[in-house]
């Protein structure tokens, strides 16, 4: 079995009797100082941050560093470390900016932020090619960013402008990008999983039924712990194994489905278990189940690499359960009263971004200066995104009827005998179409 057992993940291949919790790699972090700002983390402005400075002081010399990295975390060289750090930092800054803009009345409705879970999005998606597919939920901004959708188009979409990635028609919960392989953005949980499966099916179909050898794209589905109790999840686990689809199921277990605790919603996963593990459901459906520390981007990166390689080789799907946490409420409208202060502080102390930065500096992969440079580049990108969104025009009424049907003949025939889309008023959104 290709999956590494032990320190970075726990793999379940058959029903196991002892429940296991993965211990984090690094030593326990200090709690954040009191009186911090409204932001839920203190950004690593590297100069002056004691932890990074200390790490820099004890950084290994380059040659020794390279050897250590290759063994524990193959694939994380300095270039990769930069990519991982920048992507996580971009995710965080973008979401924090969304919160600001929401409270300033620039975006409305339900906005679900991803703060705290960046290691999962970055760790998995940064492996993927542009031709691979991902399918997300309403918590989709950062998945879109990791996949390469430009931040400015996502921000414009959140503002409801016509330069948004979905022309302002989708909004926060419905981000799509055909160019970057983002299949959505779905509001109902579990709804996207079959769609992601369809993309995996297409890849296998083109190869096996139409004999087109070049297709080995994979499809990754992201969803939460609440979804793991929904019928669509189980239907898809079965079909993915049955057809050996190049599909990866990533459960972002952040312990809460809005206000429903995972421990109150899910039964134990095995006869001797007391805790509900989702990864153990994998073997029941004929695929490996992998539990990984979702706050450690190196671990997620390693586990994802193997799952994706397995899928590309045609060996079938994998179920990955990433244990993570969202620092903010379910959405910006959620008062977040049910989660205890102790729980939040425990997870805040394991913020994936400073944790990775410290390690990278200690291993000699990144320097303080490089980190600062990446942070500034991200902040500039996010500022530019806001400016772009602010300055973009709103959709005109003429857009109302344009994308209802791919073939507008679907609006039917008017009494005069013409198709309705040929009538005046269709292009300006004024026509009666039913």
């Amino acid at each position, binding site marked *: 079995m290709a999956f590494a057992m032990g320190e970075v993940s726990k793999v379940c291949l058959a029903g196991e009797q002892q429940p296991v919790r993965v211990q984090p790699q690094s030593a326990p972090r200090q709690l954040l100082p009191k009186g911090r700002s409204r932001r839920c983390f203190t950004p690593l402005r590297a100069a002056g941050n004691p932890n990074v400075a200390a790490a820099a002081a004890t950084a290994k010399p380059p040659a020794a560093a390279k050897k250590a990295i290759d063994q524990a975390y193959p694939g994380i060289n300095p270039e990769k470390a930069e990519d991982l750090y920048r992507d996580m930092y971009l995710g965080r800054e973008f979401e924090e900016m969304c919160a600001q803009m929401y409270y300033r009345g620039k975006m409305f409705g339900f906005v679900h932020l991803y703060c705290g879970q960046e290691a999962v999005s970055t760790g998995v998606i940064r492996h993927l090619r542009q031709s691979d*597919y991902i*399918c997300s939920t309403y918590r989709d901004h950062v998945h879109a960013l990791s996949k390469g959708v430009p931040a400015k188009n996502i921000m414009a979409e959140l503002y409801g402008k016509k330069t*948004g*990635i*979905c*022309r*302002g*028609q*989708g909004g926060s919960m*419905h981000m*799509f*990008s*055909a*160019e970057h392989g983002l*299949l*959505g*953005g*779905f*509001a*109902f949980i579990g*709804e996207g*999983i*079959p*769609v*992601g*499966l*369809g*993309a*995996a*099916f*297409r890849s*296998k*179909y083109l190869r*096996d*039924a139409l004999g087109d050898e070049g297709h080995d794209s994979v*499809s990754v589905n992201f969803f939460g712990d609440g979804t793991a109790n929904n*019928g*669509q999840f189980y*239907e*898809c686990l*079965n*079909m993915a194994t*049955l057809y050996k689809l190049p599909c990866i199921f990533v459960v972002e277990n952040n312990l809460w489905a809005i206000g429903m605790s995972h421990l109150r919603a899910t039964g134990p996963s095995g006869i001797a278990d007391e805790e509900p593990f989702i990864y153990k459901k994998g073997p029941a459906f004929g695929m490996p189940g992998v539990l990984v520390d979702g706050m450690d981007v190196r671990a997620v990166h390693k586990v994802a690499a193997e799952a994706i390689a397995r899928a590309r080789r045609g060996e079938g799907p994998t179920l990955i359960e990433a244990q993570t946490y969202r620092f903010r409420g379910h959405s910006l409208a959620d008062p977040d009263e049910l989660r205890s202060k102790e729980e939040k502080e425990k997870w805040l102390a394991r913020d994936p971004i400073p944790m990775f930065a410290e390690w990278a500096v200690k291993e000699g992969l990144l320097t303080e200066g490089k980190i600062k440079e990446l942070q500034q580049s991200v902040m500039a990108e996010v500022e530019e995104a806001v400016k772009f969104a602010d300055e973009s025009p709103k959709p005109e009424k003429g857009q109302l009827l*344009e*994308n*209802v*049907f*791919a*073939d507008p*003949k*679907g609006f*039917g*025939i*008017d*009494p*005069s*005998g013409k*198709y*309705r889309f040929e009538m005046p008023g269709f292009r300006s959104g004024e026509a009666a179409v*039913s």
Partner: protein
Amino acid sequence: VGHYGGSYKVTYDLYKKYGDMRLLDTPICENGFMGMGIGAAMTGLRPIVEGMNMGFLLLAYNQISNNAGMLHYTSGGQYKVPMVIRGPGGVGRQLGAEHSQRLESYFQSIPGVQLVACSTAANAKALLKSAIRSDNPIIFFEHVLLYNVKGETKDGYYQPLEKAEMVRSGRDVTILCYSRMRYVVMQAVAELEKQGYDPEVIDLISLKPFDMEAITNSVKKTKRVIIVEECMKTGGIGASLSATINESCFDDLDHQVVRLSSQDVPTAYAYELEAATIVQPEQVVAAVQRVVGTPVSA
């Protein structure tokens, strides 16, 4: 659709010619495989998903409404869903309530889907060819009792999905019907002709959108409309058609639009009750007599 040959053997032996992946037998998970079809359609394939009975599509409703109908719009036109959802529906012979559902109207309101009902061998073939080639999601209603109807088909002929079919041209009254009701109406017409009536019969074909050109031209000519449908009266296809005719042709009508629909009752198992639930030819005859009065030619 594969080894079993499809519901009512519609895809009989096709898997031998095209293989198991193209005639994909799935486990019984309608919501799952409907969504899988949608994902495949979004990424470039043209799937045809069979509901073994259209009633089972209720289990796939989440995917049909939220995804098939909406994704082209919410993605700002980036993804299209060129799929056909087909299967047998309607009331059969004592199949019981859940297998005798007439739920065309349940899908009517979904923005972004088209509804088509075939009724003859010729239009079944021609419409399905068009539906497969259409870039829109099409819900294609076949009828359990019509699979044995024989008829001529034309090769290489594609019927437009939005146009109604003129079955019989006439002057007294416009009868709008679809699917099996076409045969019920034509049975009534045989009797009505003997009595001197001259009804115009139009097979709607397109349940959404309605072919307003064919319908309004006919209403202008006859000034009377009877809608004969197998849907329930409440919220049926006839209900929205009646409203549309009222809005478009109010000044042309000499009589209120009459709807002959099935009862708002689950289909019973017993033969007599089942027959009493749906529209029978005698009711059509009576309705024409009521609406037209004395036939013009008499």
